[in-house]
């Protein structure tokens, strides 16, 4: 047990050492999960990030409420010829263009087809973040798009985690041939350029959907990008887990469980799984951040979420075409992605620090 890596504060009394790290508070009778929670509770930045993420999720879930009571428009409602009242003045939602005379008598040519920019709260909740060239409400579309982006991101991370845990347990517990086969298939997925693999699968399946093995998915189904992204990320999660299980497999408590007659299922799920749970939790948070970014990239290239469903990636793609006249169309959904992914990354770091305080190195000066 004794190691010299802590140097000056070398001690065999691990309980005392842990207590010192906990700021003098007792650790007797407290579970590791309680201790982790106690450490996390003190990390205001991490908790703040979690709050931001949950707030974004909640806001997207409440998109129909926003559409009904604030913007008064569904995500696909167009309003090309309409007008709105901004601070008492009537304004075109999409400019009709034409020639007007300026205050000094000079002739001004106004471009047609330019949508209205962000109104914030000046129009009573309408067009808070502006309109697109069809007069659709961008804030509403970002909230609805967020539902799709978050759904694809979170569910694909869940699927990825389930498969990764299964494969890592199988490879790490049984070793030998099953380890060889599973590890080589990870190498194969790894050898594909990630985004190209995602695009290849996404485009191929988006044409006519997937109709094999009794599963029927239409081409515009959200499940297609969800599955594609989950496959792409399996090696990223499963490889570190496999390594951890391989070393846990050598521990005495596994030998003890096997000699007591525990069957492989019991060893894998009751003995090994709880020991990798903290790693899974941390990696899962970071994988969700990556799956949301990947969904955006695939949708941006047309290989992810398909029209008429909005998603943050497709909204940016649409905004790119009108960046000169209506920059907010491309900027706003990107800010939503950055906030979401940033919150997940910060929270993932905080989670890692809380679950594995030893990884946080004390700095000597």
């Amino acid at each position, binding site marked *: 047990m004794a190691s*010299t890596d802590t*140097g000056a504060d070398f001690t065999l009394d691990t309980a005392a050492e842990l207590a010192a790290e906990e700021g003098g508070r007792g650790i007797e009778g407290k579970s590791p999960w309680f201790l982790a929670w106690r450490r996390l509770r003190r990390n205001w930045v991490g908790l703040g990030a979690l709050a931001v993420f949950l707030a974004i999720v909640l806001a997207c879930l409440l998109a129909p409420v926003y559409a009904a009571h604030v913007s008064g428009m569904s995500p696909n409602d167009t309003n090309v010829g309409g007008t709105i009242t901004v601070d008492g003045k009537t304004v075109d939602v999409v400019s009709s263009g034409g020639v007007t005379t300026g205050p000094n008598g000079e002739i001004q040519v106004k471009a047609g087809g330019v949508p209205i920019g962000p109104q914030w709260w000046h129009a009573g909740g309408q067009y808070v973040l502006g309109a697109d060239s069809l007069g659709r409400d961008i804030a509403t579309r970002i909230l609805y798009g967020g539902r799709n982006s978050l759904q694809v991101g979170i569910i694909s991370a869940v699927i990825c985690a389930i498969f990764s845990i299964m494969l890592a347990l199988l490879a790490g517990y049984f070793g030998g041939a099953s380890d060889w086969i599973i590890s080589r298939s990870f190498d194969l997925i790894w*050898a594909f350029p990630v985004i190209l693999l995602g*695009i290849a699968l996404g485009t191929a399946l988006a044409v*006519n959907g997937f109709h*094999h093995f009794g599963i029927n998915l239409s081409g515009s189904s959200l499940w297609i990008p969800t599955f594609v992204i989950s496959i792409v990320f399996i090696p990223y999660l499963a490889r570190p887990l496999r390594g951890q299980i391989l070393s846990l497999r050598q521990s005495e408590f596994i030998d003890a469980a096997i000699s007591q007659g525990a069957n492989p299922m019991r060893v894998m799920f009751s003995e090994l799984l709880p020991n990798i749970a903290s790693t899974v939790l941390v990696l899962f948070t970071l994988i969700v951040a990556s799956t949301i970014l990947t969904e955006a*990239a695939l949708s941006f290239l047309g290989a992810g979420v398909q029209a008429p469903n909005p998603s943050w*990636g497709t909204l940016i793609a649409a905004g790119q075409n009108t960046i000169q006249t209506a920059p907010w169309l491309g900027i706003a959904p*990107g800010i939503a992605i950055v906030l979401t992914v940033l919150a997940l990354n910060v929270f993932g770091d905080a989670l890692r620090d809380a679950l594995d305080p030893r990884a946080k190195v004390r700095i*000597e000066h």
Partner: protein
Amino acid sequence: MVAFVLRRLFGMLIVLIVVSFIVYVIFFKIPGGDPAQRLAGRTATQGNITAIRHKLALDKPFYVQWGRMMEQLATGKLISYTDQLSVRSQIWQGIPVTFSLAIGAAIIWLFFGILVGVISAVTAGGVSDRGITVLALIGVSMPVFWLGIILRYFLAEQRSWFPDGGYIPLTTNPAQWFYHLLLPWFTLAVLFIGFYGRVLRSNILDTINDDYVRTARAKGLSPRRVMVKHVLRNSLIPIVTLFGLDFAAVLGGGAILTETVYELHGVGFYARTAIGNLDLPPLMGVTLFGAFFIVMFSTIVDVVYAWLDPRIRLQ
């Protein structure tokens, strides 16, 4: 060493064959993507379609088709289903663009990644460390295509500080080549700078308390020498792995998003056009091209790794 490299080269060949097979199966299974139908045009007779199917060997079993495609790719006779141009020569044309983008961006991200990592490790816990950590986190949280669109809009379209997309070959005008690639380089590098900075920071903080570093300090070496010769040398080893794999992915078409945003007609852009047309041959070519670099660089990384750290044995 030689046996190791030979074994890896053999493994590489197998991986490439399996990858090409998987790509083929993915596209072979597209029901609406029958290339013969699209090639034949709108007024095609059933006879035309059958003739095209025969010409492309689409009426043969799919492993025969796959074998034929591999043979054609190797000899340069594989042509795109849509523009009828040779896939190999199209990829060949994209290589200077993609390599210019990848190599320039790699230099930038390595330099700034190491700089940022060292500064934040040396000042760990201080103001500049916190500032760098926040910036690095934002950097890794931004979609690269969004950053590209924003930078291009504000710096090239609103203000004309930079050219608005496009590529000038190095041989035509080196200064313009550099000027046109500056924005794409930084766009592509930002993500990696943030990522490498964070990895390097934690590596340095892991090694800084090691006994050998204490010894170096105790025998009176200057802090700078301890950092550069002792700490950094060991902390950079994991960065070598990351760099090898990331660089390979970017070379092999991974810069597809940056190339799309800045209209750089590289290998990634070629793949992007092919995707829009569901054009199998170019996608097959680009995916194999990318897989080739990824597998090759992972072998190189292992060799470099063993050279940097003699404790690691190649097996």
